[in-house]
């Protein structure tokens, strides 16, 4: 069955100049969309990918990455809304390009977050006045 999975990859310093992710296409028959790619301040490489393919191949692809000493984490865990800090103003709603932050009930005007839709673009983080949105990579 074909599915999509969003993952956050961390490449150790020694690996950042090695081509690794191309093998996901070549050897594991997966396609991917690069949502983000950075070299972090400590020379660690960071990549956020949406992988698409057969379930079994995705599993094999992830195992391959782990064998290459790439740290793999699912994306959903990484953008967190601190609901204690959130003042429910809705400033984030028009900033989110994918509708992961939204107001469903227009009577209560409460802000909701759907981590499944989030692509971790971080466009919501600085516009939030109480800085209630945390990026935990």
């Amino acid at each position, binding site marked *: 069955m074909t599915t999509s999975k969003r993952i956050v990859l961390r490449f150790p310093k020694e690996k950042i100049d090695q081509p690794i992710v191309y093998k996901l296409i070549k050897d594991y028959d997966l396609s991917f969309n690069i949502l983000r790619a950075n070299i972090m301040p400590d020379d660690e490489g960071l990549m956020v990918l949406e992988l698409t393919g057969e379930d079994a191949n995705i599993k094999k692809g992830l195992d391959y990455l782990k064998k290459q000493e790439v740290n793999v984490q699912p994306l959903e865990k990484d953008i967190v809304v601190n609901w204690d800090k959130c*003042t*429910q*103003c*809705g*400033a*984030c*709603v*028009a*900033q989110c390009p994918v509708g992961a932050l939204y*107001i469903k009930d*227009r009577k*209560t*005007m*409460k*802000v909701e977050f759907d981590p499944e839709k989030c692509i971790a673009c971080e466009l919501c983080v*600085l*516009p939030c*006045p*109480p*800085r209630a949105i945390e990026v935990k990579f």
Partner: protein
Amino acid sequence: MVKTLNEINEKIKKGQAVVVSKEELLDLIEKQGIEKTARDVDVVTTATFGPMCSSSAYINTGHTRPKIKLGGGRATLNGVPVYTGFAAVDISIGATAMPDDDPRNAVHPGEFKYGGGHVIEELVAGKDVALEATAYGTDCYPRKELKTWINLKDVNEAVLFNPRNAYQNYNVAVNLSDRTLYTYLGVLKPNLGNANYCSAGQLSPLLNDPFYKTIGIGTKIFLGGGIGYVAWQGTQHNPGGLRGENGVPKRPLGTLAVIGDLKQMSSKWLKGVSFVGYGTTLSVGIGIPIPILSEETLKYAAVKDADIYAAIVDYSDAYPNGKTDIVGEVNYAQLKSGEIEIKGKKVPTSGISSYSKAQEIAEILKSWIKKGDFTLTDTVAPLPSAESGYKLKPLNERPIK
């Protein structure tokens, strides 16, 4: 039908007053009409929660041994400069003050992580705050340096004093240019990418009393989680500006200066906030009860989001250059739907003021009044009225050569 404030207060003290929040009032009017509702209901609670930059707290720290004169010297709280233009140990923290070494917009847009608003929130939350000061020394106040932790519970007076709060309506901000703008109304995406508004709309206190017939100097209010009072008209009060049907302001008109005891307030309703590319400020929760003294009072307090219009203003050119042209007008029902149409384009909207928190405050104030703990005050003096000629003026520059 006319009720007096005294009658209503007597009912409140006996726990018999009929108190409803503004939203409950709208349901009642729909079910049973204005006349019956005006007879049945004694008080309606209105509220708002949003960033209000002209906010501050003044504190008397208490004297040290030997004594120090902060007045005329320099002092900071958690690195944020406080105003020291008062007597020896009176200081004032402004919501938008920031540490001297905050880079501000040196690399635009700056993050503006910490400022006076955050200091006020931390004090109210009961945290220790670092007071560091230098003074020039006098015979009576010989000490020249002070570094001490202070806490809200230990200081003498701690008073929230906000020169301008609770704006009666505000602009809707859009961006007609092709680069992102960073403003006090949030981040504005290019080419009408979004429209940001900042008002509690039908819940907003002054929009429920458009001609300031019940709200005035001396009105007792919910302020920051505790009790406060309207102290004066707020800065930029502009009662004579554009109004629509039923006197509902179509532009930002009236404002309030409010005051209250910081020690009884809560960090849930006084929050330090940061506006990227703009600055820091304080979000303030205010609730104001309106006594239903007559059908006329009720007709004003029956205003709905769909009746309240605001001006859509371009913040790339018109606003910064003081131009009065507007892009259009839109009402709060349209804004709260999440999308409006401007020049044929569908534009997503975002609030900056929290309608959900305003609903909470209206409920809290309602419960205080129903319990009999909170009676309404009569005003001691009115706010300048729409007919008074009181007007907001620009600064006409006379350059100093």
